[in-house]
């Protein structure tokens, strides 16, 4: 343990606890979680339903208050910041494709909003037209025709197009942390695979630090360079890139009994 020359963690959760009140009793959703994620790590997060995966994300985004502990991201203590404030650092893609986009606004309008993520909005013009070329280029990398739908309301898009758009919106400003909350679970297998490939490409290209919740063991093994497993609100396993590379699906089944 002599070597202490570690880079500073990009995300650090220290002694994090989250409780909910159920009737008369208090139930712990997350218990004493300590986690350090290095810059550029792509961590897949596994666990049964109710293991605390989404609660962990909500702790990081501020959607659930901490009972105790601290959350530090990119050197800033964000433990008590409101979710809207944290948006300057954190981007999230939800499971439901409907959650990540404004349905009645066009694709370009959604992208324009995302291009100002976490910034103070002003009475300046939204400057939609001057950004269209950039948006078209951005949308073209999805490979699903999104670039031809820039002026369509997003409610007219397919689930795969919407989720690709959500992913672009989440990553176009290179967030300090990208949270993927089962973002392919609502899609058919073919579309799901396409979105996963796109996700991996974007994360690699931009060296994003990323946490991805998934129920697909194959995806959890194939993508990312680290894996954590949650059970009953605790982190019960943590595989680094090398250990993860040697894992088989069968090795993981013990956590899903």
């Amino acid at each position: 343990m002599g070597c202490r020359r570690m880079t500073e963690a990009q995300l650090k959760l220290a002694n994090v606890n989250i409780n909910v009140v159920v009737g008369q009793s208090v139930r712990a959703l997350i218990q004493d979680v300590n986690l350090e994620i290095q810059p550029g790590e792509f961590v897949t997060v596994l666990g049964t339903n109710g293991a605390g995966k989404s609660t962990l994300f909500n702790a990081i985004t501020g959607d659930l208050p901490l009972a105790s502990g601290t959350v530090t991201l990119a050197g800033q203590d964000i433990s008590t910041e409101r979710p809207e404030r944290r948006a300057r650092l954190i981007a999230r893609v939800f499971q439901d494709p409907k959650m990540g986009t404004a349905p009645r606004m066009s694709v370009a309008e959604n992208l324009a909003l995302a291009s100002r993520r976490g910034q103070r909005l002003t009475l300046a013009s939204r400057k939609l037209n001057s950004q269209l070329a950039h948006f078209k280029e951005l949308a073209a990398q999805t490979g699903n025709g999104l670039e031809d739908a820039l002026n369509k309301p997003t409610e007219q898009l397919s689930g795969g197009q919407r989720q690709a758009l959500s992913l672009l919106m989440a990553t176009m400003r290179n967030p300090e942390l990208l949270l993927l909350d089962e973002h392919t679970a609502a899609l058919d297998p073919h579309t799901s695979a396409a979105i996963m490939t796109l996700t991996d490409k974007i994360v690699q290209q931009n060296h994003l630090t990323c946490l991805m919740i998934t129920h697909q063991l194959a995806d959890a093994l194939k993508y990312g360079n680290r894996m954590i497993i949650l059970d009953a609100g605790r982190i019960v396993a943590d595989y680094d890139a090398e250990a993860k590379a040697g894992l088989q699906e069968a090795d993981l089944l013990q956590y899903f009994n």
Partner: protein
Amino acid sequence: MGLGVSAIGQGLLYGLLGIGLFLTFRILDFPDMTVEGTFPFGAAVTVSAITHGVNPLLATVLALLAGMLAGLVTGLLSTKGHIPVLLAGILVMTGLFSVNLRVMGRANLSLLNQPNLFEAKWLKALPEYFDSVAVGTIVVIVVLTLVILFLNTQIGQGFIAAGDNPTMARSLGINPDGQQVLGLVVGNGLIGLSGGLIAQNNGYADVNMGIGTIVIGLAAIIIGEVVFGELTLSQRLVAVILGSIIYRFVLLLVLKLGFNPDDLKVLSAVVLAVAIMVPSIEHKIHVRQVLRNGVQAHD
């Protein structure tokens, strides 16, 4: 002729009420009951100010500010006080009834022998009733331009997004609560302005003039949508104004048919209910299809 012109003028002035309500009802997606208090509040403030010697133009601006204040109270009750927004609106509407009595000092205040916006010299040169059309057109053009410009700013886009998908807005760093307050302030400002103008056009303010105003506003919005169909957001705002004018003609027609003016409120409620039901009824019985088939069969 005169009645038709008057209907256009009234439609334009009430159209502002529709625009104000559109911001909350269509963009933020809730019916703002504050309207029924804000509209007479704007009227009461304007008329009282004029009878106290304030310049009519300034008195009209005061109506706008009064409306904004009412919207602010509803917004704060809803976002900071966590009162459901429908109830917050009802509370403010109820409270404003007393406020309006206090402002006017009585239930009805006349502008008889007082100046008002519609008494300007150049307006007096116009034929009868055209004064309200002229004032209405000018105010509607100014308001529509400002609202459309606003909706195309960064804040305006954040406002639309917050109404469209609060979860997504929050995840982009936009506080939906702040946008809700903004919508209520601007919306009620326009509704107060509408009240101030209608009061001057009618020549009085009455503490009961708010009853049914939410139906008037919703009718303008929904008639506009039913008649003009799929439109861009900016076009939809224009459709609200046109819907408001059409609604005035519908009421005029109803009265011409010989209905008792006492029944006007129930009739306006029926007109609105029918307008709201038209899209779903049309969907169910394929009215257009039936009409087309009918025409072809007789060709």
